[in-house]
């Protein structure tokens, strides 16, 4: 287990700051005046009951939805709206609650697609696929194979991802995000629907990514055990409002948090 004190030292200044963000869909207020920050190098959990606005928060961060009010500062640059493309360019990668893989493509191609922003050989080299275009392809393939080894998915390299079981698809999606070599990685329930063993594997991958590459991670997760093990700090949302923002241990005992989860069908599973 990690020692919180030593991590505390490692954590840097804020990489991302969310200030007074509100978001409404018609009459539904998905987010109301939410503020928090994510520091460089940390694993930041976002938790809350179903419909609390967690996914909406990630969607605001990576530009799918412009917030109605408030602003977001990423790497010191403040902005109110941003296209997902710009978010990718800025170094934000993401996985989805309900998977958003390229289903007709192989594992390898999915992860290679994550290198889109790093590959530049122009159209005319692509026409002949020799020389610089092939060299570039090989160079990135090498990097992608490292990710494949890291995630232990070498055996399914050439399998169309639509045919893979759910747990492996989640892994491939993480691989695609890692291929972007992001500064900030947003993970929306990466362990949903997994069995214990798969959850343990995934937890290990997340910790390793954070420690080996120093990637800052925002993690949405319902399993409190996982949140306790992985995260440095936790934001708790309920009905679109932030009700707590503290270390995992403090959050667990927070009476607002307990009240929010009481009466929820899943409750806090420790």
């Amino acid at each position, binding site marked *: 287990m990690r020692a919180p004190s030593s991590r505390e030292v490692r954590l840097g200044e804020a990489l991302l700051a969310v200030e007074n963000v509100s978001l409404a869909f018609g009459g539904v207020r998905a987010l109301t005046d939410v503020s928090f920050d994510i520091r460089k190098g940390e694993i930041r959990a976002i938790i809350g009951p179903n419909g609390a606005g967690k996914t909406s928060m990630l969607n605001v961060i990576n530009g799918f939805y412009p917030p109605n009010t408030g602003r977001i500062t990423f790497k010191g640059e403040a902005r109110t709206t941003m296209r997902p493309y710009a978010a990718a360019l800025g170094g934000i990668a993401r996985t989805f609650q309900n998977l958003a893989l390229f289903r007709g493509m192989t594992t390898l191609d999915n992860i290679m697609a994550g290198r889109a922003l790093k590959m530049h050989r122009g159209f005319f080299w692509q026409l002949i696929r020799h020389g610089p275009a*092939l060299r570039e392809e090989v160079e990135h*393939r090498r990097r992608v194979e490292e990710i494949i080894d890291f995630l232990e998915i070498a055996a399914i390299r050439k399998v169309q991802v639509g045919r893979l079981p759910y747990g492996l698809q989640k892994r491939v999606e993480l691989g695609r995000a890692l291929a972007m070599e992001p500064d900030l990685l947003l993970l929306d329930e990466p362990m949903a629907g997994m069995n214990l063993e798969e959850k343990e594997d995934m937890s290990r991958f997340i910790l390793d990514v954070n420690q080996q590459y120093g990637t800052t991670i925002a993690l949405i997760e319902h399993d409190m055990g996982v949140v306790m093990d992985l995260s440095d700090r936790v934001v708790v949302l309920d009905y679109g409002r932030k009700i707590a923002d503290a270390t995992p241990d403090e959050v667990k005992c927070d009476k607002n948090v307990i009240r929010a989860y009481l009466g929820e069908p899943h409750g806090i599973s420790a």
Partner: protein
Amino acid sequence: MLYREVGQYKTSYAADMAIFPILQDRIGLAAILLIAFVVIPLVGHDFLLNTVMIPFLIFTLAAIGLNLLTGYTGLLSLGTGGFMGVGAYACLKLTTIFPHVNIVIWVLASGLFSAAVGVLFGLPSLRIKGFYLAVATLAAQFFLEWCFIRIPWLYNYSVSGAIEVPLRTLMGIPVTGPTATSLTRYLIVLSIVVVMTWVASNLVHGRIGRTWMAVRDMDLAAELVGIRLLRAKLLAFAVSSFYCGVAGAMMVFLWYGGAEAEVFAIDQSFLVLFMVIIGGLGTLTGSFFGAALIYILPIVLREIPAALGLPVHPSTVEQLTFVIVGVLIIVFLALEPNGLARLWQIGKQKLRVWPFPY
């Protein structure tokens, strides 16, 4: 035992990324090229060359073009006929204005014109998808057809309103026009189709192909990994229309030798679309299979009664052909949506593990 990759270890990523990593596939490809370039010219008579091979190759190229757009990028187009027409009319105008430039250059250059038109009509694809985009391309189809009929300048004011292909030579040998032999035209068509298939295969197996397929499979996620959607879609429209345009130019200049605007009507769009669907969306091999099935099968069916000496009226055969092809399309859509190419893959997979079932 014969078709195996066992023992063929790939020693580098470049080798693993080769388009035909298995030796037997490469031998097969070499054999096909040998037959196409040497055997068929030696044994081929006019019927085989002019009625079977030339049109088959031209339709294959058009099918590859549409497949790049619909199969690889997921953008359904009903404008194929129109884009082919742009190629044909552009080629006519180019060779009329610059008669001394090699006609093969103009056949290829005419693709650039359809590419430009394709990009123009592809612009709405950023906002609209699926069925609605198909309707937008249908509008393009009808608009282009209208142009082909209503703008006499396009067909050089010919009295018939049709394209009349002039005589053009290459190193003294007639290539287009009535005196060009089917063998010459076959070899030119074959060369163009082989080179353009190779190029298409390079594109779809590299960065650009992945970009297209990503847009097709999940455009939100594509944007999120840093793919610019409009750019990717417009590039697909451009390349696809380029292929269709060259196919259209070859159709008139190297096959028909003259054509009216009807050749580029909506029927042609559907014919090519059927080829793509039956062959398999998102596979280049499938485009060959699809063109063969839709174009060559009816020819075979037509020849059967005559060969067997059956007293069947040609029009009956014609109708029967429609029925058979129609049924095949429905069967394919229902049973094997991935087309003939998928069956081919399954067959090869079986062969690879033979004699074991798995």
